[in-house]
């Protein structure tokens, strides 16, 4: 088999880009970190595919990603509450996510839709993306990173060159023993840095009601709609640094949460900051969904970060080989999804070995 092993993007779906853990050290010259919106999903996807946890992945939104293997076998893994569909010698079938699988040349995988959340990570064994300023992460505004040095999100027809997997790797796939539990707790925020630019009630308002995710929600940030947050004075400050999670509030009093690709500085007062542990969960909310905020101290936020890290490590430690008769497992997952009687990722989900 002399043909190069490649993964072709037949469709990027709603939006898909190459991301890793992001580009550090350049905020001082205006370069945001970029990187995956949910680090836990990236780490699980990579671990399932047998890759380093922080290796580049395909991050995709809202389903529709469609890829096909060329030239040789390609091992993939999907993390996120996605409905995965494959076209292979067995025909078209649905699979549960949170596992790896191996496509032979000509076989295809599609993220048909997302059940919960809007972000899935697809790890691809052998995917090697050149780092630009220390990271493969796509930051389109400045044309940094991305597939084949394009500096852009993935487009139809993009081909990702891969180090070939062996056909024997088929069947040596892995599965997460237990899908991460859906977390519906409030999104936790640390008040500040400019909480004092708001009226005395504004923080209480922020944490007391529902906010709805507007249609303006992407890798840069999420514009929310809900109870108005009143400024004490001007709705402008002399620009200072933003961080991923900054909740800035322009004059209209509706909050905007900044995410991985957001501008590094801004002139709107920031009432609070979403803690790092809750950023992925926030970014995964779809337009129209609602959320609540809860206030914690910075010290408590750091404690939550450490607890979340322990959870992530436990999840990764739970990764098991798929049984050799993986085809039966596939059928079982598939019938669960098709019947809708037992949701493969719901509370009834059980490891099948």
């Amino acid at each position, binding site marked *: 088999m002399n043909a190069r092993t490649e993964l072709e993007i037949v469709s990027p779906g709603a939006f898909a880009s190459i991301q890793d853990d992001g580009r550090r050290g350049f905020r*001082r*010259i*205006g*370069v945001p970190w970029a990187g995956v919106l949910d680090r836990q999903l990236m780490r699980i996807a990579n671990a399932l595919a047998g890759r380093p946890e922080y290796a580049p992945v395909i991050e995709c939104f809202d389903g529709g990603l469609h890829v096909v293997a060329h030239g040789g076998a390609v091992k993939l893994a999907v993390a996120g509450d996605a409905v995965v569909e494959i076209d292979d010698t067995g025909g078209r079938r649905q699979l549960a996510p949170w596992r790896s699988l191996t496509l032979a040349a000509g076989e295809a995988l599609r993220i048909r839709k997302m059940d919960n959340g809007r972000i899935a990570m697809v790890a691809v064994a052998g995917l090697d993306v050149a780092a630009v300023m220390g990271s493969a992460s796509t930051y389109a505004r400045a044309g*940094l990173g991305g597939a084949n040095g394009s500096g852009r999100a993935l487009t139809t027809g993009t081909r990702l060159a891969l180090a070939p997997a062996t056909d024997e790797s088929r069947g040596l796939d892995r599965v997460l023993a237990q899908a991460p539990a859906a977390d519906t707790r409030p999104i936790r925020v640390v008040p500040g840095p400019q909480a004092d630019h708001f009226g005395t009630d504004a923080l209480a308002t922020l944490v007391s009601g529902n906010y709805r995710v507007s249609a303006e929600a992407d890798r840069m940030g999420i514009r929310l709609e809900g109870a108005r947050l009143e400024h004490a004075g001007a709705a402008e400050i002399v620009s*200072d640094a933003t961080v991923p999670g900054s909740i800035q509030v322009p004059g209209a009093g509706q909050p905007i949460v900044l995410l991985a690709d957001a501008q590094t500085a801004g002139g709107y007062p920031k009432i609070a*900051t979403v803690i790092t542990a809750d950023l992925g969960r926030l970014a995964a909310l779809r337009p129209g969904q609602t959320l609540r905020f809860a206030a914690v101290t910075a010290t408590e*936020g750091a404690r*939550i*970060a450490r607890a979340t890290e322990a959870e992530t490590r436990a999840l990764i430690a739970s990764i098991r080989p798929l049984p050799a008769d993986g085809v039966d497992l596939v059928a079982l997952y598939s019938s669960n999804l098709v019947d809708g009687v037992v949701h493969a990722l719901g509370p009834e989900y059980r490891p099948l070995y």
Partner: protein
Amino acid sequence: MSHRILDAGDAALTIEFGNVIDPALLAAVNALDAAILRLQHGGGLPGVIESMPTFRSLTVFFDPLVTDRDTLLPALQPLIDAVEHCTPTDGRHWQLPVCYEGEAAPDLAEVASTLGIDAAEVVALHSGTEYLVYMLGFLPGFPFMGDLAERLHLPRRSQPRVRVPAGSVAIATGLTAIYPWESPGGWHLLGRCPVPLFDARRASPSLLAAGDKVRFVPVSADEYRTLEAGLRRGEIDPMQWCVADASSAREAAA
């Protein structure tokens, strides 16, 4: 110097020296930034990822799995206290070409009429001052520079543009800037600079750094096109517009 410590979540904190644009605040910010970088590179600040200097504050980003605000603050306090005694370091001096003509200057006539002076005077005022680079951001390589001559002070445009062309030289709120990238923007566009401000292939991707000084030199539309073509073909080194480098002069003397 008086300061406040502000929480910016569980993974960053901001040391704020003031809330206005003032070169004295900038000197404190940049002195603290340099001190933190030195300590960080010496391994003295485990968990610190990077720092971000702005007009009036410094934000320190850290990994909450390695450190937290309560651990970091005692390590930072001596550096903050020492800022009192700092003298601002001299940045580099630049003379950047700007075309203030025709389509490169879409707002020049309107700015002139708003201010009640003629366009030539706007250009003379804008190119007659050496500006301090206060900070970089919100976009990669975007320099916030000041201070504008009093006569040129204007609020932002009431209708921001959806597309400001890359290279646009703009003014608003007492500051001037160059847009390194096409982006939305609400500043008044007076001209166009052909020199790329950001190149990921360079060791320092941003041409300018906080603390540098910049003067604009008017060029004709023809000169602009020649420079732009030469830069695009790689025949012109942007460093030719760096007319004085205080740090290399210091190194040479040492």
